Every structure is written in C-alpha cells, then in structure tokens.
C-alpha cells in the first residue's frame, strides 16, 4: 500500500515483512529510527517469531549477528559511521564466513571532526570487506532493496549491505509503496542455510586457513561476487515482475542514449542530478546520468557499456580517499580504461554539505567547456582554507584545525545549505 512515511519506518516495516528471526543492533544516528521501529514491531508481536537482542556495542551487534546467522536464523542489523568502524573486524568475518546477514548502513560521515550528517565515507571504509554493497536512490528503492538483499544474500551465502543516505533518506517523509506480506513471501522463500551450527549434527565454522589455501578461499569469495553480478539483474527483473516497479539492478541509466556528458553517482543525490540534467537538456546540452546501485560487486561491463557513447564522465562522490582522490572515479576509470573518455572527479556533500541543483549545473557547465579540473571540490570555501593555511604557516602552535575554522566562521549552530 502506498503511504506517506518516514524512510526509516518504511525500511523497518519492509524488513519485518522479510521475516527476520533475529534482529540485533546498537543505536547510532541516523540509523536509530530503523531499529527502534523494528524493536517496537517485535515487542508488539507484529514481527513474530523474532528475537530482538540488545547488545552493548556495534562490535557485539555484528558478532551476535554472525552467531545467529550461523545457527540458521535469518538475521538483520543496521548501523552507521563510527558504528560500522567499531564492528569492522566482525564485518570482515561475516563476509569471510559467507553468512547471509543483511545490514542497513544509514550513510554518515566519519570523524574526526565528529559529524553526524550524511556522506559515503562509512560505506567506502567497508568497501573491501567482501560484502555486497547496494545503494538506494529513494526510500522506495531502499525498502525494495532489502527484500532483494535477503534473497540475494541467501542465494549466494554472502552478506549484503543496503546503503541509504543518512537523514536525507532515513529521516525524509515521502511516498513509499509498501508491499504485501504474501507478495514478499512469494519472492523470498524461508532461509535454507548453506552451512549450519547444529548440536545434533556438529560442524565447525571458522577454521584457520594458512598459506596453503588462503588465496584460494579469497578467490572463491571473488567468484561469488562475480556470481552476484549475474544474480543481481535477474533478481531485479523478477522483483519488477512481482511488484510492478523497477528497483535495484546493477545500475540505472537516465537519458544516457545520446548523452555526450554523463554524470555517475551513488545514492540519493541522483534525484538532484537528474533535475540538473533535465534543466541542461532543456538548453540543448546532451547530459545523462548513471546511478550505480551495485557498488560491490562493481559492474565493470555494464558501466563500460553505459558510457560507451559518451565523451566525458563526471563522477560525483560523497567520499574521497585523502591523499589520492575519488574512490568511485577509480572504479569508473578501471571499467573504461580502453575508452577515449575524459573522467572528472567531483567531491561533494561531505559531512552533510547540501548539494544543490544550481551547483551541479554550474559545475557541469564548466565540465562541458573543458574547464573542470580532474579533481574538484564542489562549493569549497577557499577563504576558510587560506586563512587556516596562513595560521599554520604563521606559527607552529596554531592549534586544532576544526576549532580554528569554527572560530573563524563564528559558527554557533550547524547549518545545512
């Protein structure tokens, strides 16, 4: 049923429709509303049978999820930012053990400086952990991706992370078509574990593997990620047939057919970018947009095909590798290394900085005139940077940067936009 609903609530209700048997999570903004709602659904008996396990930390949340999943329970958790970092050892273990845990990541920046707002630094920090990472563009897609995520995870015996932009999606109230229980049941059969801890049929899970086979075990993980590349579009097509809408898949193309310039991005910023593309199209500029849904595994072939007609690509990223540059851009460059294509990286929206249509349009105009630098920071306030650089050059003991910058700005409350 179509409802006007908060993103977190829509995800919680959808996860409940997937009949998880164990939900174990530790609260952290902006993920909290999701697990609060799930906790209430378990307590009220609407989600049953399901055990909601309170733990003392994110490390415990993922560790309990690993244990629960290994005993054959469909298992869900959610986190964000520092919470993901705190559980990261167990995050790698979940993937290495091949346990089909589904986790929502309510994307948030990573400190220091501490910042609760949205960017993709957390997802990028777990990029190489071996999880499938799917990015939602809207709350509808965030909800739908969870249904596909459980199916994908259990088909392949791999954990899946559904990434949705913190606050921008988790706290936005918008229209979401929530599916019916019988339709979800038809799409998502009961969990049949590939491996199971059972006292009546004891096995061990988590053996030490030395140099004799570690590389082979890792290569098998790589093959399973390649299997996921095949499986994700199949599941998205099956989902579309069952639920009547397109959600998920490897990537979404928007007005790319004849596009000279294509913007590539992840997550909710795609909406604003599409509006910018439409505005530029109206002035005769051939602009298209590609949203990468499956960031891990990265769909090299699909990206190369989708970009085959373009002359230039602008990758808009809400994260960057300090000391290097773009993360997603590197993947796009790898996928298109044999194409005659100019690739520009635009870092935007860090720590919740608003990404406006106006800034995107201005930046794309620069790109189309060949004036965009290979690495650009959108809406960067050069004055702040020059003044702090001057302070640092002026005296050795210039003090902490974050505090200096805030004092310089005279900021008393955080502003967005």
């Amino acid at each position: 049923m179509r409802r006007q609903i908060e993103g977190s609530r829509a995800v919680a209700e959808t996860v409940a429709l997937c009949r998880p048997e164990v939900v174990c999570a530790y609260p952290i903004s902006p993920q909290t509303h999701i697990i609060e709602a799930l906790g209430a659904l378990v307590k009220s008996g609407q989600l049953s049978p399901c055990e909601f396990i309170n733990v003392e930390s994110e490390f415990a949340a993922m560790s309990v999820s690993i244990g629960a999943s290994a005993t054959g329970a469909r298992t869900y958790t959610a986190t964000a930012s520092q919470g993901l970092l705190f559980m990261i050892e167990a995050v790698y273990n979940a993937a290495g053990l091949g346990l089909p845990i589904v986790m929502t990541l309510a994307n948030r920046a990573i400190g220091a400086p501490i910042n609760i707002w949205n960017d993709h630094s957390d997802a990028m920090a777990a990029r190489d952990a071996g999880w499938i990472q799917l990015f939602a563009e809207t709350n509808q897609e965030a909800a739908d991706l969870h249904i596909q995520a459980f199916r994908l995870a259990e088909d392949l015996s791999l954990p899946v992370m559904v990434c949705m932009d913190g606050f921008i999606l988790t706290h936005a109230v918008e229209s979401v078509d929530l599916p019916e229980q019988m339709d979800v049941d038809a799409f998502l059969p009961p969990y049949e574990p590939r491996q199971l801890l059972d006292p009546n049929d004891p096995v061990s899970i988590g053996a030490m593997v030395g140099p004799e086979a570690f590389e082979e075990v890792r290569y098998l993980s790589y093959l399973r990620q390649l299997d996921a590349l095949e499986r994700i579009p199949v599941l998205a097509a099956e989902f579309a047939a069952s639920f009547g809408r397109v959600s998920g898949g490897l990537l979404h193309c928007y007005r790319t057919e004849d596009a000279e310039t294509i913007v590539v991005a992840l997550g909710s910023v795609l909406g604003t970018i599409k509006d910018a593309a439409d505005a530029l199209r109206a002035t005769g500029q051939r602009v298209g947009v590609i949203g990468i849904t499956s960031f891990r595994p990265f769909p090299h072939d699909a990206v190369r095909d989708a970009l085959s007609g373009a002359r230039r690509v602008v990758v808009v990223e809400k994260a960057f590798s300090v000391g290097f540059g773009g993360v997603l851009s590197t993947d796009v460059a790898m996928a298109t290394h044999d194409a005659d294509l100019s690739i520009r990286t635009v870092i935007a929206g860090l720590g919740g900085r608003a990404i406006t249509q106006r800034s995107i349009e201005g930046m794309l105009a620069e790109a189309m005139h060949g004036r965009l630098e290979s690495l650009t920071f959108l809406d960067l306030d050069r004055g702040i940077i020059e003044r702090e650089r001057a302070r640092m050059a002026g005296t050795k003991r210039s003090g902490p940067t974050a505090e200096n910058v805030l004092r310089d700005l005279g900021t008393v409350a955080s502003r967005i936009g």
Partner: protein
Amino acid sequence: MAAFAEGRHAQAFPSFGSERMGAPVVSFCRIDDRPIRTREPVMVPDALIIQDVTLIHQVDLFAGLLKDGYVLVNASQHFDELQFGDFFDDFHRNRLLTCPATGIALTQLGRPLPNAAMLGAFAALTGEITLDAIDAAIRQRFSGTAGKQNVAAARAAFRFVTLEEKGLTSASAD
C-alpha cells in the same frame, strides 16, 4: 501527509543540529503536483513557518524568502508589533501573519507544543492544504487523546487565522 492524502506529492525532511533541547532546528517540506526528485534543502521558500519568535534575531531566518512569500510566526503579538523594521515593506501584507499557537496549544493540549496549531494556521493562510486533510494526518500520526487535542489545536488556529483575515482581530483564540 496531509498533502499526500489530497493526492499530491510531498517530501518532508528535517535538518538535524546539535541534538540538544532548545537548539535551533529547521525542517523542510515540498508539496508539488509532480513527483519530487531533488534532495537539496529548500533555499527559496514560498512559505516560512517560524515556531519560536525568539529565533528572529538569532538566525538568518529570511534568507531566500521572496517578496511574494508567506510568513507565519508563532507569537501572541500582532505581526506589525514584531520588530522587523522596514524589512517586510515590499511584501504582500496579507501573507504575513502571527498566530498565538503556543497559547492555543496550552489551551487545547495543556502543553506548549505549537506544531499542530501552526499547521492549521498555515492551511488557513495559504489554502495549500485543507483542514480536513490536516485532521486526517494528525489522527494518523497521533492516536487517542493526543490526536483529538492536536486536531482541536489545528482547528482553533485555522479559525483564528480565518477570523484574523476577516479583520476581526479582536477574536480570541479559543
């Protein structure tokens, strides 16, 4: 939710701040006849609802507001008694209004929670949503007594603004 109930597209999202009681907070809402894709904050509002009149001199509240915009302030004084100087001289006077929403809330809810009253006042001031849709949205969000009381607050504020617009400024906020 009220706009959605009337078959329109709507998007609402907060901007979180320092997560302490009393900190200035901002929330945005878009209502459109077409699907809403953008995720940028509302920077050029058609209407501005100010829930706490003491914010006026602390935060740059009116950035981006155009001369034909609506301004609704939660205050017991008349709009002209608020110390705006000549800032609003070029605005449409009939789009600028105060509503004693906290007073209405204290009467109807017994608590200083002006939100529902401000929604009712907004509906009366702009005609963008109907009072019935607001009623339905409040009842969907709050069950039982809280729902009834908030609906009463929204209705009282709606009535206050309607009377105010008729020039019956002496009408009391029941």
